[in-house]
């Protein structure tokens, strides 16, 4: 199975779409935005823009990596017959979805770490070691609901629909969750949507930790709740997609 994981990682690293949308985008946007607003200070938290943006772009990158590395490749494999190729080998059925989950979690790391690195190198962001660990750790584990969403999309839709749906899901969650613009500047209708989305809770945990505070219980519950709900949906959809008629 470790060889299967290696193969999954290898093919994504060779995938242009993954590299552009997931690894390059968040870093480039971080550099752009932090040059514009990096020195602004948030009155309520006292955080510098460079830090807020670091969390936002890292969260966006991780969110994008989660969905892009799961939904479309999985839909394509089902459609192209590669899934059948695997189903006729001794590889057990659960190994496929588990490997996909682990592979996606590994593929999230480059964007998280590169945005952090860009923040340190270009904006001189510095946090205590414990906060770095907490921030990166929670942004990493917190991608589980998004990976589950991606796998659900990949299990239910053919590749030509999975592609736009994954894109819309990714940008929708990022935009409405306040990763591109602060939720505070949104009209109230959008604000109330944002507050129920996993992406908002997810980024909020990061912002809190970066400010040296404990994350809100409601944010943590939100992410865990979505992880459980979407995880169950992913397992259900996976079984439906791999059932033998």
């Amino acid at each position, binding site marked *: 199975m470790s*060889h*299967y994981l290696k*193969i999954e990682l*290898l*093919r*994504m690293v*060779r*995938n242009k779409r993954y590299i552009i949308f997931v690894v390059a985008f968040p870093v480039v946007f971080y550099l752009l935005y932090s040059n514009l607003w990096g020195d602004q200070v948030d009155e309520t938290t006292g955080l510098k823009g460079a830090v807020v943006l670091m969390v936002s772009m890292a969260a966006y990158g991780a969110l994008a990596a989660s969905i892009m590395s799961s939904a479309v490749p999985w839909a394509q*494999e089902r459609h*192209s*017959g*590669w899934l*059948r*190729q695997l*189903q*006729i*080998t*001794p*590889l*057990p059925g659960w190994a496929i979805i588990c490997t996909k989950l682990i592979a996606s979690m590994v593929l999230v790391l480059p964007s998280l770490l590169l945005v952090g690195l860009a923040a340190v190198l270009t904006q001189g962001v510095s946090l205590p070691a414990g906060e770095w660990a907490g921030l990166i750790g929670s942004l990493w584990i917190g991608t589980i609901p998004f990976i589950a969403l991606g796998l659900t999309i990949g299990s239910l839709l053919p590749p030509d629909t999975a592609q736009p749906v994954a894109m819309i899901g990714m940008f929708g969650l990022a935009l409405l969750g306040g990763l591109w613009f602060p939720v505070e500047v949104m009209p109230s209708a959008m604000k109330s949507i944002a507050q129920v989305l996993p992406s908002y809770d997810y980024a909020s945990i990061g912002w809190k930790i970066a400010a040296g505070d404990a994350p809100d219980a409601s944010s943590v519950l939100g992410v865990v709740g979505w992880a459980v709900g979407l995880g169950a949906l992913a397992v259900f959809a996976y079984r439906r997609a791999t059932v*033998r*008629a």
Partner: protein
Amino acid sequence: MNAIAFNGVTKKYGDVVAVDGLTLDIAAGSTVALLGPNGAGKSTSINMLLGLLRPTSGDIKVFGNGPDEAVTRGDIGAMLQEGALIPELTVRESVDFIRRLYPDPLPLDEVLRMAELTDLAGRRADKLSGGQTQRVRFALAIAGGPKLLLLDEPTAAMDVESRRSFWDNMRAYAAQGRTIVFATHYLEEADQNSDRVVVVARGKVVADGTAAEIKSGVAGHTVSFRLGLQSAAGLDALPGVSAVEIQADRVTVRTGDPDATLDALYRKTTLDVRDLQVHGADLEDAFLALTKES
């Protein structure tokens, strides 16, 4: 022991009966062709052997186990009718990945050599031609060294030269005591590459035997001559004869053994045989006769 045993297997898709009460045993170590026209139920049967499809009724055993068990044990390798590779992976990576999933695989270099992929090993799958892709799919099927190899129309995308070397490679694999079942539309392909041909049509077995038996049993040869006003009575009793047709003043006799038929025609009858013509078995005719709608 039987490698494969179908026991009264039926598969329905809604109203369509794809496989209709199939009962068939295939001995371990044999190479068997499943010959049939489009929609005969070849792929459905193969996919049931692999556990990809479940029979509506009946029972399937592969080396004495159910299909899922056989797949888990690594007893089966297959080239399905359709299937793409992972575009970003090289030939070597794909083949090595699949072979490592089996408990007792062949060495990687040997697999590449047997599928004639040694020179293409470093090439990415999205840079392969159709025929080369088929060779990689063959490599994936044999990589685990399975005892049973299933090939569903394996030469579909290949030119004449590639077909020839494909069958050579298949025979090399079979020569190691393995069981092979392949599906094809062509009697000629079945004839040249198998020791038993099972002809299927509309989900049923319509003929089963060596290619020579099938050819002679069905179309066989034809012997025809000008009958004129003479009576055709007794021609159907000549050795080897399966059918007698009269058209205008000519009679055409179908026979599985033209030598015996001719011999008897001259020695045992008093007919005045004029304008004699003997035609060999036409493979395509044999096949069409067997599988046409009844």
